[in-house]
């Protein structure tokens, strides 16, 4: 089956940017989990997830955000989300994620929020 999910990685100052492309479901969530794990273990705890090209998310994908957030915040970092399309945002909203995570309209705004803090 064709590759349907990709993760791009880049850096801006002390902030790591993970760019998601495609769909995040029970099949692709393990790759995302691995990526976040690697970032955290590599000492990078300010993470922006650029969701502009994320076309779909199910609870398996949401679960990755949930299972890491406490640990990363305890270490003084955060996972901040950016540029979520309405279809994906709707799923975040159904589960009450906007109260748990800082969500920004675009990636530069999310990166800037780390630089301010």
């Amino acid at each position, binding site marked *: *089956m064709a590759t*349907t999910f990709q993760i791009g990685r880049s850096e801006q100052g002390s902030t790591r940017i993970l760019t998601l492309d495609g*769909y995040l*479901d*029970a*099949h692709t969530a393990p790759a995302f989990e691995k990526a976040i794990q690697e970032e955290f273990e590599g000492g990078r705890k300010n993470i922006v997830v650029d969701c502009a090209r994320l076309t*779909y998310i*199910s*609870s*398996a994908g*949401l*679960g*990755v955000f*949930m*299972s890491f*957030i*406490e*640990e990363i915040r305890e270490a003084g970092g955060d996972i901040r989300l950016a540029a979520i399309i309405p*279809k994906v945002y*709707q*799923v975040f909203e*159904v*589960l*009450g*994620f906007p*109260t*748990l995570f800082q969500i920004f309209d675009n990636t530069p705004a999310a990166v800037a929020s780390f630089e301010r803090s």
Partner: protein
Amino acid sequence: MPSFEKSFTLHVPSSTENLALIRDFVGNIGAKAGFDENEINKITLAVDEAVANVIEHAYGSDATREVTIRAVLDADALRFDIIDNGRGFDPGLIKQKDLEQLVKERRSGGLGLRLIRTVMDDVQYQIKPGEKNELRMVKKLKKR
């Protein structure tokens, strides 16, 4: 108007690789039933969650097993039945925890069921572990 009922059935190997194909199937039937895009997204998510639960929990990620997705469309509603013959579990016994609690426990589970219950109008289970487990989810058609 005479009553009618149309049924569409998909049998797929129990692998998460097939979730995308299942979502396409559900989306096409949702459109055929006349739901708008927003509703189709919700129904698709519910079926995805239900099948992912079967793959992970009922079959323990054994890809040699089979999941059946049956869509039944009538004048009032679109119903999806998710059928497996793995280890059944009674979702009624699963305590719904709030989001903050799951985060504190570093657990990501339990979200799928919550999504299903939130987006569908009626959800029922018939559990006979090892024989046949069936989850029925109904989305009512809007009256025109």
